[in-house]
């Protein structure tokens, strides 16, 4: 197929918060169906990188293209681009006043403009994909953390995005609930979803990632297959970091 063009293409991305430069020139291309894992110490700029991709943070300079569309161009309809970029947050951010189905269907109705019945059909399908079909009428406060995060994944999935960004999706979860979220992510990968995942779940990275990127101080220090990065990294910093996470 003609999928040579990357789904996500970041070039020379800089981001400063006041005097603090958080991203110091990031280049990254993510191909269709690829699962890219981003690791690195806290404060290395991982989350900021993700949040620049859909302009939740305004990049200072550089370019970002999603499916070839320049995210930062003045004429770009950012809300249309965001439909194509799903995002999953550390703290789920479900809407507490809506039930699971309401959470999943809000953007379908308001952004895509689907009639309620059609949106609810699509919403039910998305909930079924994350294994929560029977929780459609439950409110966020009635769900466990793992279930809430899966609803949040369904909310992003329902819009049929070209790429999903995960910002530490399991960091706020009790250990016994992490597995259910990772299982959903694994299933998504197998179905060909393009994903960028910021996370400390190293075992998941080893088994599921196509590529692992190590970031530090606002730069990509090294990237490669999980085998290479975890077993034979060129930079000792990476070995130290992985050791500090994994024991």
């Amino acid at each position: 197929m003609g999928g040579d063009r990357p789904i996500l293409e970041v070039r020379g991305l800089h981001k400063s918060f006041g005097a603090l430069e958080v991203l110091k020139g990031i280049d990254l291309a993510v191909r269709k169906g690829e699962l890219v894992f981003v690791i690195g110490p806290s404060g290395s700029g991982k989350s900021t990188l993700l949040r620049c991709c859909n302009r939740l943070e305004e990049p200072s300079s550089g370019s970002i293209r999603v499916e070839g569309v320049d995210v930062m161009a003045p004429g770009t309809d950012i809300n249309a681009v965001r439909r194509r970029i799903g995002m999953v947050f550390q703290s789920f951010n479900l809407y507490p006043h809506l039930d699971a189905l309401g959470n999943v269907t809000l953007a379908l109705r308001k952004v895509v403009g689907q009639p309620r019945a059609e949106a609810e059909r699509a919403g039910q399908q998305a909930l079924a994909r994350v294994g929560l079909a029977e929780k459609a009428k439950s409110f966020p406060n009635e769900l466990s953390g793992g279930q809430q995060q899966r609803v949040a994944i369904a909310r992003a999935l329902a819009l049929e995005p070209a790429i999903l960004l995960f910002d530490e999706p399991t960091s706020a979860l009790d250990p016994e609930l992490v597995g259910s979220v990772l299982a959903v992510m694994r299933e998504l990968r197998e179905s060909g979803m393009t994903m960028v995942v910021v996370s400390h779940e190293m075992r998941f990275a080893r088994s599921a990632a196509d590529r692992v990127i190590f970031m530090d101080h606002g730069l990509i220090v090294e990237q490669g297959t999980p085998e290479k990065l975890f077993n034979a990294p060129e930079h000792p910093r990476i070995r130290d970091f992985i050791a500090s996470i994994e024991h």
Partner: protein
Amino acid sequence: MQLERLADTFFNLQVMQQYLPKIVEGFFVTVQIALAVVLAGIAAGLALALVRAFRIRALNFFIILGVDVLRALPPLVLIIGFYFALPTIGIRMSAWVATWLALSLVLAAFAEEIFWAGILAVPKGQWEAARSTGLSFVQTLTDVVLPQAVRLTIPPLTNRTIAITKGTALGAVVAVGEILYQAQTAYSFSYNPSPLVLGAAAYLILFIPVVYFGRWVETRFAWKR
């Protein structure tokens, strides 16, 4: 005996009977103004808070200034100003309108502050989640943030609304025929304070249900986080 005199002074049935129709008349005037104040005040307060959410600096300066002035001024000053002072520059309004306008403005000012606090209290992550799915700023405000903000604001808003609608009694000063005015007038005609007791009873009949309604709304709209 003392007790008889007390009864005769404050609970004189004959006087009460005579002036009851006037108090009832006043009751409906009070209800009328109170409803008009609640509708106008809360609607205007909400509209101002929504405008403020756009964070247009120059506009917000005037909103904040106006709100602060209105919150600082006693409503009675506004009523007297509207009714007695404005005609000198050619703006005339009835006592009813002056009372309604003054109280509506004061309620709008407090409601704006309460709604604004509610909007600010909605976590940033809610905005981010909604915007990340492509919802516009306005859609996020109306469909995600406002429903949560309004629930947070219901208890303080109910209390403030009750406090300000009770201010309809201030209309007595400019001769609006509401409960207190009728009671006071009846008192000066009869030289007996029983109509004032009747007036107090009318206020209780009107506002106790409102207080209970407020409590019911609070529980109805509460949801666990």
